[in-house]
């Protein structure tokens, strides 16, 4: 007979409650108080930081305040995201015994491939894109991440049912030119949602059913519907006290001046290329790069892919990362060269030295 796991739906909640439930269910699974569980959830509008991120460095705090967008810290890692009622969250609470592996990369892949099959059953072709995304036709439809506690782990993902890309961009601390119509249109090409793909908003029950079936098939289990139990609710109350507080949101607090957004532009034979670089001055790491300019690059997604490749890398790795990126693919960009991308990023970073002077100003401020 198949093993039996629980399925539960905790409905629409503010992020503090959702993350307190993350903590509560993960602890309860670790303590052996609950069976392995698939949980569905939704969020009221919120800007969600990765566990080790600082709100000041990642978010446009003024925009969030003016638009009633709650700011919260996840218990999982990764980057800041925007969530609201138009996205469905799914989460698995398991033990390493359920998975037969301790390797975190293997575990993430197995869960994401199963989730992609569940999404595909809705009539789209979803695929796992390492490390943490599920995409349809090269466009992201689900982002994922995990947390562990001893033998227990939680893996969570989002599913874009409908989605406001512009709002996602506005909550983030990014260069102003990334909010131009053209840049927003370009960002729209990188994500996709079910409504756009299916021409309708699918019933929530239909989506949940397909995802549940995919996990049931992958792990050889049956699901029973169950509510939260008293031990989970006790742990939830304790976790909520900690998480629903400014102390939790400010757990990591780093000044914007430690991570300025530095900009530079340079005219090359292949055209004018601009780079904005979010740079961790202390650790000498490139957190993120945005390229714009008057350049020709085919295929068009190349620049987006390069930006993804250059996320969170040591400055000393910049040149080899760019070289390896272009060596691995066929790109037509007239007389623009891989070297030009490195040059313009280095020009931007050179401005960090000037910023370290006492009167230094963050260019994004």
């Amino acid at each position, binding site marked *: 007979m198949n093993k039996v796991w629980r399925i539960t739906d905790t409905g629409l909640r503010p992020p503090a409650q959702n993350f307190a439930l993350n903590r509560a269910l993960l602890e309860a699974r670790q303590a052996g108080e609950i069976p392995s569980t698939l949980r569905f959830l939704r969020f009221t509008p919120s800007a969600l930081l*990765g*566990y*080790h991120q600082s709100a000041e460095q990642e978010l446009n705090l003024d925009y969030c305040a003016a638009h009633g967008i709650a700011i919260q810290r996840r*218990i*999982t*890692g*990764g980057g800041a995201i925007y969530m609201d009622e138009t996205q469905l969250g799914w989460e698995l609470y398991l033990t*390493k015994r359920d998975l037969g*592996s*301790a*390797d*975190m*990369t293997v575990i*993430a892949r197995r869960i994401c491939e199963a989730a992609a099959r569940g999404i595909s059953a809705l009539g789209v072709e979803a695929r796992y894109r390492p*490390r*943490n995304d599920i995409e349809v036709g090269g466009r992201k439809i689900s982002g*994922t*991440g*995990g*947390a*562990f*506690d*001893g*033998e227990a782990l939680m893996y969570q993902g989002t599913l874009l049912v409908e989605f406001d890309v512009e709002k996602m961009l506005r909550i983030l601390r990014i260069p102003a030119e990334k909010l131009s119509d053209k840049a927003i249109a370009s960002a729209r090409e990188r994500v996709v949602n079910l409504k756009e793909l299916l021409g309708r908003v699918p019933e929530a029950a239909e989506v949940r059913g397909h995802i549940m079936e995919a996990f049931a098939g992958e792990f050889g289990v049956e699901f029973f519907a169950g509510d939260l139990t008293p031990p989970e609710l006790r742990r939830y109350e304790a976790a909520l006290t900690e998480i629903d507080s400014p102390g939790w949101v400010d*757990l*990591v607090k780093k000044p914007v001046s430690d991570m300025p957004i530095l900009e530079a532009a340079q005219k090359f034979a292949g055209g004018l290329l601009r780079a904005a670089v979010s740079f961790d001055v*202390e*650790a000498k790491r490139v957190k993120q790069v945005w390229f714009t300019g008057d350049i020709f690059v085919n295929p068009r997604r190349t620049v987006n892919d390069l930006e993804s490749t250059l996320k*969170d890398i040591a400055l000393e*790795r910049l040149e080899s990362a760019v070289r390896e990126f272009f060596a691995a693919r066929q790109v037509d960009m007239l007389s623009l060269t891989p070297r030009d991308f490195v040059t313009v990023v280095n020009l931007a970073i050179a401005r960090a030295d000037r910023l370290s002077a006492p009167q230094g100003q963050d260019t994004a401020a």
Partner: protein
Amino acid sequence: MADSCNGCEFRPELYYDREFQIWVRLEEGGIVSIGMTDISQTIAGKILHVRVRRPGNRRPAGKPVATIESGKWAGPVPNPFDCVIVDANPEVLDNPRLLNLAPYEAWIARVRPSQALEQALQGLVSGEAAYAGYCGRCRREDIHCERKPG
């Protein structure tokens, strides 16, 4: 040469928790260092962030002394006994990859156990029993250690 199992380095002079997630080294003045084992750093993969609880904080047994993040996995570095955080390793905070590259040199936190040292160490394993348990976990879970640079 250090002992190893499946390529996972084992240090005979250290104490370990029963799951071999962490190691504990005795320092002077009743202080102990806590770090991640080769097994833990391998399972975690490339470590991007480390956060240590503030010095002076009291941590009950089982609560994390630190948290790590690798890829998009985040999790605790568990604490085997009730203790007060004395110090965090600034080199590791600056460069978390040291945990991958030199797990037994890269201590994460120094702590002072709240009870007597012998009592604190009671829940830990060391010596031959630790080596047997360490190898047992490597084999049972088919863990092969790697020290990936970059």
